C-alpha cells in the first residue's frame, strides 16, 4: 500500500520567485526505507517538510500539486490525524527539547495528542525499552550526551506511534559513536517495527546499506531514484557516495564497494607495494610548547593530566577523543580562556598568561562549532572587520582582500544571518583569520557538512598551513584527520594516550583508523585517501 504519494508538487517559500521544489512526483510504499541525498540547498529538507505538512502550514508560501498520505490529500487530513501518522525528527536535539525531564520530554507529543495517562505510561515504558533509555529516564535532558538527547527526541516521536517517520540529518550534530547508535535505532524502527522511514543524512556509509531506495535531488528536483538492488548499476552516476565508494570511483573502478567488507573483497587478490613517493613532512620551528599541563575544575577531579606536546610552524595537528576526553578544556587553555592551570603553555616563546590582548588575538584564532554565535554585526564587511577594529588595526583593503578570497565580496553588504549555511561557514573562517593568527584552532569544522564542503575546508587548511601558520583541528572525523593532518593526538579521560605522525597513530588505531586504512589493513600502511586512490589506480592500470 502507498504510504505517501506526491503528485506534480511545486513549492515557493514566501516572497521568493524561484521554486524550492519543482514538479516532484514520488510514491513511497508502506515499510520502505528511503534515503534522500544531494548537495546543500537542493530541497531535501523542504521535501521532508512538505510530507508532514510543515509546508505550507508552518512556513506559508505557494504550492502546486498535491501530497497524499495513505491516499488522503494532506490538506483534508486533520492535524491531529496527520501528526499521529507522520513523525518528524530534526537535526539538533538541543533545539527540539521542550521539557527538562526526560520522561516528560518523551511524553510531550502524546500530551499534545491528548492521550490518557495510562496509554502515555505504557508507551513511555515501551519506547524506553526499545531505545534503552531506562537508565537515564530519571535524569534531566541537560545531563545527558547529545546522542542520548537525540534518542530521547526519537523516542518522543515514536511514542506517538506514527506509521511514517521522517528524519532530517538526525546525526549531523553527533559524534560517530552516538551517530552509529542513532542510525541503528532508525534501522530498527524500519526493519523490526515496519515503520516507513524517510531519511536525509550526510553520513552515507551506513545509510546506503540500510536504505531500500535512494532519491537523488538537485536544484529542487528529484533527478534519480535508485532501488537497493540497482545501486551498483547506477552508482557511477551518483555524486554523493559513501567515502569508501568515492575512493574507488576516483581510482577508476567500475564496480564500487559500499562498505569496507566489499572494498576488501575487491582488492583481496592484488599485491600492492608501498607508495614510493611518500614524503612525510618534517617541521623545525616550534611555535607552541605545552609542558606538563594539568587542570581541574573541581578539586581532585583532574580534567587534564600531564599534557605535553609541541606544535611547529606549518604543522597541522588533529586532536581526537571521545566527549569528555578533555579536548575542549585543552583548547580553552590554548586560546587563553582558562588562565588558572598548572604547567606551562608557551606561544612564540612567551607564556600565554603574559600575552597582551593584541598579541593574543594575533597569535591564536579559534573557530567554534556554531558559526552563528559570531554574527552580531549588521553586514558581512563589519563582521569580518570586527576583530581588527577591536585591536585598533582596521584596514579596509585587508578586509576587502579577504572577502574576495572567501567569495564573500559580492555579498559584503548583506546581514550575516541572511547567508546560506556554506556562506556562514566561510564567513566564520574569514572572521577568524582576518588577524592572520599564527595558530588556528578549529573545533569540529566538518560536523554536519557534506563531503564536498569538507574538501573545501581541508584545502583551506592546507593553504593556510603553507603560509607557515599552524593549525589544530579538534574532531571526531578520522578520515579528515588522515587526509589533512601531519600529526595526531588521541586523548582519553584527560590524558594523551597516543601522539605522533598521523600515519603512525591512525594506521594502527582500532577505532580511530580512517576507512582507507581499514581497506589496506595488513597490506600497506596508509591513512590518506589521496594515497589510497593512487594505490588503487595501480590495480586498475595493472
Amino acid at each position, binding site marked *: 500500500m502507498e504510504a505517501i504519494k506526491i503528485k506534480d508538487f511545486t513549492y515557493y517559500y514566501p516572497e521568493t520567485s524561484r521554486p524550492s521544489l519543482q514538479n516532484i512526483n514520488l510514491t513511497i510504499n508502506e515499510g520502505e526505507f528511503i534515503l534522500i541525498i544531494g548537495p546543500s540547498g537542493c530541497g531535501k529538507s523542504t521535501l521532508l517538510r512538505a510530507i508532514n505538512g510543515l509546508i505550507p502550514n508552518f512556513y506559508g508560501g505557494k504550492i502546486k500539486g498535491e501530497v497524499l498520505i495513505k491516499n488522503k490529500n494532506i490538506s483534508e487530513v486533520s492535524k491531529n490525524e496527520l501528526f499521529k501518522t507522520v513523525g518528524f525528527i530534526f537535526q539538533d536535539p538541543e*533545539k*527540539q527539547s*521542550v521539557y527538562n525531564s526526560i520522561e516528560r520530554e518523551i511524553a510531550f*507529543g502524546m500530551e499534545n495528542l491528548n492521550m490518557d495517562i495510562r496509554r502515555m505510561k505504557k508507551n513511555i515504558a515501551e519506547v524506553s525499552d526499545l531505545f534503552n533509555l531506562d537508565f537515564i529516564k530519571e535524569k534531566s535532558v541537560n545531563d545527558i550526551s547529545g546522542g542520548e538527547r537525540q534518542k530521547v527526541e526519537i523516542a518522543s516521536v515514536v511514542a506517538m506511534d506514527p506509521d511514517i517517520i521522517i528524519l532530517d540529518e538526525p546525526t549531523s550534530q553527533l559524534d560517530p559513536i552516538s551517530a552509529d547508535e542513532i542510525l541503528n535505532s532508525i534501522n530498527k524502527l524500519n526493519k523490526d517495527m515496519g515503520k516507513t522511514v524517510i531519511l536525509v543524512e550526510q553520513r552515507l556509509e551506513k545509510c546506503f546499506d540500510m536504505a531500500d531506495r535512494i532519491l537523488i535531488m538537485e536544484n529542487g528536483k528529484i533527478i534519480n531514484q535508485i532501488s537497493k538492488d540497482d545501486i551498483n548499476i547506477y552508482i557511477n552516476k551518483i555524486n554523493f557516495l559513501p567515502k569508501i565508494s568515492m575512493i574507488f570511483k576516483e581510482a577508476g573502478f567500475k564496480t564500487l564497494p559500499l562498505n569496507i567488507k566489499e572494498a576488501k573483497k575487491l582488492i583481496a587478490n592484488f599485491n600492492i607495494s608501498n607508495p614510493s613517493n611518500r614524503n612525510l613532512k618534517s617541521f623545525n620551528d616550534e611555535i607552541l610548547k605545552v609542558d606538563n599541563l594539568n587542570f581541574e575544575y573541581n578539586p581532585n577531579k583532574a580534567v587534564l593530566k600531564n599534557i605535553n606536546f609541541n606544535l611547529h610552524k606549518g604543522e597541522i595537528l588533529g586532536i581526537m577523543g571521545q566527549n569528555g576526553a578533555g579536548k575542549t578544556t585543552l583548547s580553552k587553555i590554548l586560546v587563553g580562556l582558562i588562565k588558572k592551570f598548572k604547567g606551562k603553555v608557551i606561544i612564540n616563546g612567551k607564556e600565554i598568561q603574559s600575552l597582551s590582548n593584541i598579541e593574543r588575538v594575533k597569535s591564536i584564532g579559534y573557530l567554534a562549532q556554531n558559526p*552563528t554565535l559570531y554574527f552580531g554585526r549588521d553586514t558581512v564587511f563589519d563582521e569580518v572587520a570586527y576583530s581588527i577594529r577591536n585591536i585598533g588595526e582596521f584596514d579596509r583593503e585587508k578586509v576587502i582582500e579577504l572577502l574576495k578570497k572567501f567569495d564573500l565580496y559580492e555579498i559584503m553588504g548583506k546581514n550575516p544571518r541572511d547567508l546560506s549555511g556554506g556562506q556562514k561557514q566561510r564567513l566564520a573562517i574569514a572572521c577568524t583569520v582576518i588577524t592572520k593568527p599564527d595558530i588556528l584552532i578549529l573545533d569540529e569544522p566538518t560536523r554536519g557538512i557534506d563531503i564536498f564542503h569538507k574538501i573545501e575546508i581541508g584545502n583551506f587548511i592546507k593553504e593556510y598551513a603553507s603560509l607557515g601558520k599552524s593549525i589544530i583541528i579538534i574532531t571526531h572525523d578520522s578520515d579528515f584527520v588522515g587526509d589533512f593532518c601531519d600529526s595526531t593526538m588521541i586523548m582519553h579521560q584527560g590524558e594523551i594516550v597516543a601522539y605522533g605522525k598521523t600515519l603512525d597513530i591512525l594506521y594502527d588505531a582500532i577505532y580511530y583508523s580512517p576507512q582507507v586504512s581499514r581497506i589496506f589493513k595488513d597490506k600497506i600502511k596508509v591513512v590518506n585517501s589521496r594515497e589510497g586512490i593512487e594505490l588503487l589506480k595501480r590495480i586498475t592500470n595493472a
Partner: protein
Amino acid sequence: MLNFSSGKFIQRFNTLTNIILILTYIIGFLLVNNILILTVILTSLILLSKVNGICKEIFVFFRFSVFIALIIIIFNLLVNKNGGTRIFIFGDFFITLESFYYSLFMTSRLISIMITFAFGNQIINPDDAFNIISKIFGKSSLVMSLVYRLSFSLTNQISNIKEIEFLRGNTFEGSFYKRIKSYGEVVNILFLSSLEDSLELAEAMYSRGYGISKRSSYRNQNFTFRDYVIILICIILIILLTAYQILGYNSFKFFPEFDNPLKGVTMYDVMILLIFYSLVIINWWWINGSDKN
C-alpha cells in the same frame, strides 16, 4: 528557570501556588511607593528564601542587579531635574535631593523585582510551569512558551558568546561606556541567536502536534492543605494591596519635596507587612515544626 533543582521544602508546593506567591510579591513591589514598606517586604522575601535554604543562590542575582541599579541612579540623576532641594550645582547642571531619593526608590524596586524572579528561578519547576502556561493560554502559549524558553537559551549561550567575543578582541574592559558597548555586542548576538533557536523550537513543537487541540498532562500536581493556606494568604494580600492603592493609603509624594517615609506608615501598612511575614513564619513552622522529623 534554569536554576531549579528539587529538594527544598518550598518546591514541594504546587507550581501554581509558587507562581501565585511570586506574583503576589511582584504586585507588592510594583504598587508600594514607600521605600520603607518596600524594604520590609523585600526583607520578608529574603527571610523566606533563608528559611528554605536558597538565600545564597539569590545573592548572585543581587550582585548583578546592583550593577544595573547603579546605571539607573546615574542616568536618573543626569536626566531628572524635578525637586526643589539642590544638593550639587555645576554651572547649569544640578542634582536635587528629591531626584536622588526617587532614583534610590526606583532602583530598590527594580532590585526587589529581580530578586523575586531569582527566587522564582529557585522554586518553580520549569516543566510544571510550562504545563500550566500551556493550559491557561491554549494555542497562544506557543508564543508564551517561546518567550519562556528564551530564558534558557539566554543563560546557556551567554558564556559561549562572551568567550567568542573575547577571542575576537572584545575584552570587556576599559571605560564604563566601553564596557557597556562590549556587553551590548553580546546581548545583540544573544537575542538574534535566541530568536533563531526559538523559531526552530516552535517548528519542532508544531511538528509534534503542539497547539492542535486540548492537551493532556503526563504529570498532574495535586493541591495540598499547605497550598491552600499559601494561596489564601496570597489572595488576601492581593486584595489588600489593591484596596491599599484604591483607598489612597499608597499616596507618597517625591516632588517637589518627598514625604517622610516613616510618617506615612499607617496601621494598614503594618497589617499588610504582618501578612507578608506570616508567609515566612508559616514556612518556618512547617520546616522546623511539623516537618522536622
